[in-house]
């Protein structure tokens, strides 16, 4: 088991080095950083002096090592557009994004899993078919269209919910939360539904197909023959065995929730990292883009690692047979 975890950690580090390298290339070679800092009238000598001071004339490897060193300490330079340290900008906006992602993840799990189990057990019921058809629509609705539709119905027509921002936020230390005010709760309803819908349909369909698969197996038939109550069979025997793929998908989905929060945050002008990032892309603000890339990659890699390790907790077979584990990363 230790070997397996070490191997996974090594892989995670390798991915991070690649991402850091891409981000470093972007930082240094996409546009001239000196051009972005000095004015048009700066002389050649001024520029050279600045290059020396910034270390841009050092050997490539030294520059990369310095970049990684700074990145580990969370320093990504100064935003071209806002003229403030990127680290401050991101840490200011991280709570908003994480609260949105957390609320959406909870929503998609709490609704997706029960519906998936239900449609898996009552396969031929009309209600199951309706749920499945609706879920197909959920897969085909682009995130931003869901957001626009919700805004049109609940903000423009009914006027119940705010269409932008996160309401009144309360500062607790460095974290700012919107869960302590009524306006904050109202503001998070539509963005979190928008973000959750796609993941919810994915989880629903996955749980359903896994349930159908497990229901066909011999031990479920045997459990029925023994006359065990349905409840015990459905949840104690069947559902428990769908957990490995379900946990994988949920874990990986938290990553894609962070990526898709870019879209949701833009639609609802949610003051999070995604909104910051999309503005950075529009203004060619390379330090912010590079920092966001490294940060999001770090979150993804961490999630992947946690999911891999969770396998051991959920599936006892893996503790015995390691070859299965390496094949289950698909």
């Amino acid at each position, binding site marked *: 088991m230790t070997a397996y975890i070490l191997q996974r950690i090594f892989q995670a580090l390798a991915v991070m080095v690649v991402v850091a390298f891409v981000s470093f290339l972007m930082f240094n070679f996409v546009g001239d950083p000196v051009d972005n800092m000095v004015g048009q009238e700066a002389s050649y000598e001024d520029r050279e002096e600045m290059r020396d001071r910034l270390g841009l004339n050092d050997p490539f490897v030294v520059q990369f090592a310095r970049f990684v060193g700074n990145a580990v300490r969370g320093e990504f330079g100064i935003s071209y557009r806002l003229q403030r340290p990127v680290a401050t900008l991101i840490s200011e906006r991280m709570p908003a994004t994480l609260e949105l992602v957390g609320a959406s993840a909870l929503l998609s799990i709490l609704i997706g899993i029960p519906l998936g189990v239900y449609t898996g057990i009552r396969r031929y019921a009309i209600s199951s078919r309706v749920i499945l058809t609706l879920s197909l629509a959920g897969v085909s609705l*682009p995130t931003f*269209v869901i957001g626009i*539709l919700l805004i049109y119905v609940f903000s*423009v027509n009914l006027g119940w919910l705010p269409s932008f921002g996160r309401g009144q936020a309360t500062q607790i230390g460095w974290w700012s939360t919107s869960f302590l005010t009524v306006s904050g709760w109202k503001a998070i309803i539509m963005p979190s539904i928008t973000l959750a819908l796609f993941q919810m349909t994915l989880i629903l369909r996955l749980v359903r197909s896994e349930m159908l698969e497990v229901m066909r197996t011999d031990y479920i038939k045997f459990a029925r023959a023994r006359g065990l109550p349905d409840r015990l069979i459905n949840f104690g025997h069947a559902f428990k065995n769908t957990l490995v793929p379900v946990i994988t998908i949920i874990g990986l989905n938290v*990553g894609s929730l962070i*990526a898709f929060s870019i879209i949701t945050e833009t639609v609802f002008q949610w003051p999070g990292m995604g909104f910051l990032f999309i503005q950075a892309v*529009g203004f060619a603000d390379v330090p912010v883009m590079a920092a966001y890339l490294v940060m999001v*990659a770090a979150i*993804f890699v961490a999630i992947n690692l946690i999911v891999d390790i969770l396998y051991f907790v959920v599936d006892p077979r893996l503790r015995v047979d390691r070859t299965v584990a390496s094949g289950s990363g698909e």
Partner: protein
Amino acid sequence: MSDNPLGVSRPTSLLHRILDSDIFYSFSHSPITVLSAIVTAIFFLAAAFAPWVAPHNPFDPATLDLLDAFTPPAWEEDGSTKFLLGTDDQGRDILSTIIYGSRVSLIVGFSAVLFSVILGVGLGLLAGYLGGWLETIVMRMADVQLTIPAILVALMIDGVARILVPVHLRDELAIYVLILAIGISDWPRYARVTRGAALVERNKEYVSAARVIGVHPIKIMLRHVLPNVLGPVLVLATIGLALAIITEATLSFLGVGVPPTQPSLGTLIRIGNNFLFSGEWWITLFPSIALVILVLAVNLLGDWLRDALNPKLR
């Protein structure tokens, strides 16, 4: 074919063979699939013949009249039958902008999918058939990219490319940048499938036989290995088309895709979104509906194709 023990192909016409096939049978017996095929075909035809199909030319300033701006759809109170789905802020007919917009969306979607297929299948074939360090590099790259959602990869490539392109060329090159970004964001899926199939075929006797008689490796890959992956790749590409259309629309909606001078469906939704609060809902809702219907139809076709081509389900 079982009544034909010698395996000699009967001289039947291509049309007859298509009508006789399993795939056509499963197609014609699924009403939803037929419907989505019709919807997709309507979109394709309307997009291909946009100048003839669209009631107005929304990009010819000579035909635009600002007095027509913000006309609601024909069935609303102030609507006019001249503009079936209403007009936008510049007096452009919404139905016509949707038809021209689907054209841009479909062109970008198709080109991006073609680009990913060529890149993914090419690299997958080389990796699976040749193996060795090439395989390691290609598949590791695919693994790394798969840990990051495609939309983020596309956004990054798009963002970097926009910085590299000079400002005055940005709008002109936006479509190509978009095709490149979306195309690169989706190649790992094709590479994985192709490599898997190539690994299986590589060790089969007919491939060894071809190798022994001295057929060039590239010819073996294209003639013998490639045909085995076309089925799964076609399924992936159909669903990939729906994904590419969504990705394009999303990037355009975020303002980093197709410029307003030659709008796609996503750009139209972005423009219309500004008027949602002042009551002109049709400017953004109709392009949204068109986008959803197009994506849903392509997705349903892809779902059906996956089941129809899956030998396990036959």
